[in-house]
């Protein structure tokens, strides 16, 4: 059953999206999914990892302990070149259990569903304040700068204990860190700046602890459960993952809704928390902003979907196309805010499933649930063709979104 692959015949990944369908995965992914649950693809460095395209196989593999997220293992399919193998291991997202679980458990407490729910009034206030400012200012405005980026940035700063006054510094460096096309040296330097910054903050919390998450990590350093470099890297992971993702969902979600006026209308006319929560799940499924795929490497031979994955083979689990698998979601390419989309894999699956999902859900419910109701005349202030999409990003979205009302 040995697999011989002629690299010349293997499709390139990632492929381009169709010019007129900025919300849909690249057409090549649809074609691959139709052919079978997994196939070899060729990536930027010439290697040929497996691309897993179907929902069932993807969930099975992401929950399989024979599959590793350890970026330092040979065969791990990186999404972009790096300067050194261990240079940018951004904490537990790129580690396996038991190390992954040890670190993740230290930061789980503030993200429970009920704890996050207590922050809802504060987030509502932030959202209302930003909309007040927007409406008092000139129209058109860039929704990314005015709304989408500040909402999650303000919230994660408060949660971690990072001064929001530094937002330009950490937002600029985060952008470089998650751009696939960024120069490897440049990306390593941005990562080093963020680690240095978080290390300073952790140092301050050691001297003057507060109620925030970084202070809890400082406490663990004091008890010897955590090293200071571990704490700084965890801080970087939480800060970057905590604002870039949600910001892209707010802006791209708004654009998708503006392009689907009947769906936007549903949100404009409702304050039903159930409908809004369902809309958030469907937008997460439909847009799947983490479009680079989950990256893994097989630790043992695994038989699945009529193929044998060999120990050491790289795996890319393309969650964007899995969320469009017709076997899991009928009529998958239709944005339908009323469908039950909760089974989506936009937050991944298995032990690495998004830590911040209760926070992201609540932020998106407040943002989508308020913006269109308070600004019912919100419209795009340019043509769709002129919107700069983040084709080169680890996380998909729009660089800017000019809107008027």
């Amino acid at each position: 059953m040995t697999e011989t692959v002629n690299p010349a015949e293997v499709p390139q990944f990632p492929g381009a999206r169709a010019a007129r369908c900025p919300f849909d995965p690249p057409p090549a992914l649809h074609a691959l999914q139709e052919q079978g649950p997994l196939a070899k693809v060729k990536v930027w460095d010439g290697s040929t990892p497996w691309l897993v395209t179907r929902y069932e196989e993807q969930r099975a593999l992401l929950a399989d302990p024979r599959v590793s997220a350890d970026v330092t293992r040979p065969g791990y399919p990186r999404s972009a070149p790096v300067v050194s193998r261990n240079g940018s291991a951004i904490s537990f997202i790129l580690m396996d259990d038991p190390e992954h679980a040890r670190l993740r458990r230290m930061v789980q407490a503030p993200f429970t569903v009920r704890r996050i729910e207590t922050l809802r009034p504060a987030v509502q206030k932030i959202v209302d304040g930003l909309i007040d400012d927007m409406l008092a200012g000139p129209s058109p405005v860039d929704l990314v700068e005015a709304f989408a980026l500040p909402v999650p940035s303000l919230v994660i700063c408060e949660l971690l204990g990072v001064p929001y006054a530094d937002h330009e510094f950490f937002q600029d460096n985060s952008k470089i860190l998650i751009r696939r096309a960024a120069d490897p040296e440049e990306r390593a330097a941005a990562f080093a700046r963020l680690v240095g910054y978080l290390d300073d903050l952790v140092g301050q919390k050691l001297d003057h602890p507060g109620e925030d998450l970084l202070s809890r990590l400082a406490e663990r350093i004091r008890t010897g459960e955590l090293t200071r470099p571990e704490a700084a890297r965890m801080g970087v992971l939480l800060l970057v993952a905590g604002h870039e993702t949600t910001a892209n969902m707010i802006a791209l979600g708004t654009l998708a809704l503006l392009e689907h006026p009947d769906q936007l209308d549903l949100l404009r006319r409702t304050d039903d928390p159930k409908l809004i929560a369902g809309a958030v799940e469907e937008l997460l499924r439909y847009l799947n902003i983490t479009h680079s795929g989950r990256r893994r490497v097989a630790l043992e031979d695994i038989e699945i979907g009529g193929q044998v994955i060999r120990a050491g083979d790289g795996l890319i689990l393309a969650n964007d196309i899995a969320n469009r698998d017709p076997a899991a979601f009928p009529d998958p390419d239709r944005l339908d805010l009323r469908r039950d989309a909760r089974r989506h894999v936009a937050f991944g699956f298995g032990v690495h499933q998004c830590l911040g999902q209760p926070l992201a859900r609540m932020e998106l419910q407040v943002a989508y649930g308020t913006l269109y109701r308070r600004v019912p005349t919100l419209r795009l202030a340019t043509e769709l063709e002129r919107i700069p999409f983040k084709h080169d990003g680890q996380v998909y979205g729009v660089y800017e979104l000019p809107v008027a009302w």
Partner: protein
Amino acid sequence: MKIVIDQDRCIASGQCVSAVGEVFDQRDEDGVVVLLDPTPPADLAVAVRQAAAVCPARAIHVEE
């Protein structure tokens, strides 16, 4: 219906609490799942099965 949870596997995703807050909760200190009601009433059966299906750590088992 009888529910069994595996706290060692749980990764505190909160999916079960979002699905059926009447049956599942999370520990304050580390977010790990807590079972509020191991034998929930029949009207919650569908939601409980959904919780088990979306649990990313396969930490929820439902016996009929």
